């Protein structure tokens, strides 16, 4: 490993947040091209499946993390639970913010059909969403954070899958429609 690669490795080790290419280049007083080369070398060293630590590209930057192979032992050593799972309400609010951002609380409530204060509050507390200005009527708007990208292993926001893939299939849609109109009809005849 050359000196630049060693320095880049040390910076990623120290930094709590993913570090972008330009910040790495700036800190190392090198060109981005040189840093890219060093990262390639590091990537060889940290190739997944060989080491306990892996090099990852998330939230618009580079970072080191443990390989899941160590998860069981890490839980024993640190006595710290892994990221607690989301409740269904939190997951729905997060999905709405992730895909419709920036989005206000009333808009979230409209999609879910139910007020969503507590779930939104928890997501704010957990740092997965944050404020992003105000709507025309003064309502606070929300968007996802870098931590969200980090926790979900997303390189960037646009690496979320296309939301259309979550739509019910035309067959399911048809079925839903028929049931809406006919669910009661059968009952009224029986």
């Amino acid at each position, binding site marked *: 490993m050359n000196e630049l690669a060693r320095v880049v490795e040390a910076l990623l*080790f*120290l930094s*709590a947040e993913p570090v972008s290419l330009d910040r790495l280049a700036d800190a190392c007083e090198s060109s981005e091209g040189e840093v890219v080369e060093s990262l390639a070398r590091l990537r060889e060293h940290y190739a997944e499946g060989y080491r306990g630590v*892996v090099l*990852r590209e998330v939230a618009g930057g580079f*970072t*080191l*993390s*443990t*390989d*899941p*192979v*160590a*998860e069981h032992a*890490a839980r024993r050593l640190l006595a710290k639970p*892994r*990221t607690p*799972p*989301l409740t*269904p309400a939190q*997951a*729905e609010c*997060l*999905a*709405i913010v*992730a*895909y*419709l951002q920036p*989005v206000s609380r009333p*808009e979230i409530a*409209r*999609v*879910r*059909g*139910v007020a969503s204060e507590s779930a939104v509050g928890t997501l704010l507390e957990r740092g997965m969403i944050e404020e992003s200005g105000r709507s025309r*009527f*003064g309502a606070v708007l929300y968007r996802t954070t870098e931590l969200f990208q*980090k*926790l*979900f*292993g997303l390189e960037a926001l646009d690496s979320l*899958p296309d*939301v259309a893939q*979550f*739509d*019910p299939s035309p067959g*399911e*849609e048809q*079925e*839903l*429609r028929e*049931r*809406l*109109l*006919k*669910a*009661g*009809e059968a*009952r*009224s005849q029986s």
Partner: protein
Amino acid sequence: MSVGASLDLEMDLEVFQGPFDLLLTLVLREEVDLLELQLADVVLAYIDHLDRAGELDLEAATEFLVLIAALLELKSRLMLPGEDGEGLDLEPGEAADELLARMLEYRRYKSAAAFLEQRLLAESGFRYRAAPLPRELRRASLDLAEPVYDPLSLGAAIGGLLRAPPRLELDHLATPRVSLEGRLAHVRSLLGRLGSFSFDKAVEGADRVTEAVTLFALLELYKAGEAEWDQREPFGPITVRAGSNPDRGEG
């Protein structure tokens, strides 16, 4: 997938007696008048039902909430007065379309939520280091600080915070300064001049009441086939165009 049918909820209301899913169908086919239905009673019946069941079926509960919210929205739209005193009638098919659209939109985000839950679980084995920085790196160094922010942004932020929202006064409702005729004329003139424009353009600089009345005006023009509009995504921009067919059928 289940709609209502999974609820198994018996209603005993002033205007209707029977299962909830039947009520839903009758409402959609306009055999029960939504205006005469006390939705609060439906909610109370549902709460009783939950009490008796003794446990909360989350799946069925969210389904119910989405349905009741959609019914509330439909009903509130029926209650808005039209220019000639008629309600903004929805065909039974259209009402079902509305409900269906709401259900589909909700299902989209419910599936996306399931995806996110999975993803979080799969990612949770990648732990990041959270050790504090070595002491010498902990404080941001003053020598390395350069002016990067504009002080005027602070003044602007305070200015924004000094702005209180306009108070909603009831006198405004008694003597509305915005007339439907006025907004109709405004929208017609935009249509005439531009052919197509965005809703934002039609209400540029307008207050909340004017925005609402402009929306009514558009609904009227839509009904008369004078205008059409589309909105690609929820909360996205609304584009208004001149209507081509005064007897606009299925869209």
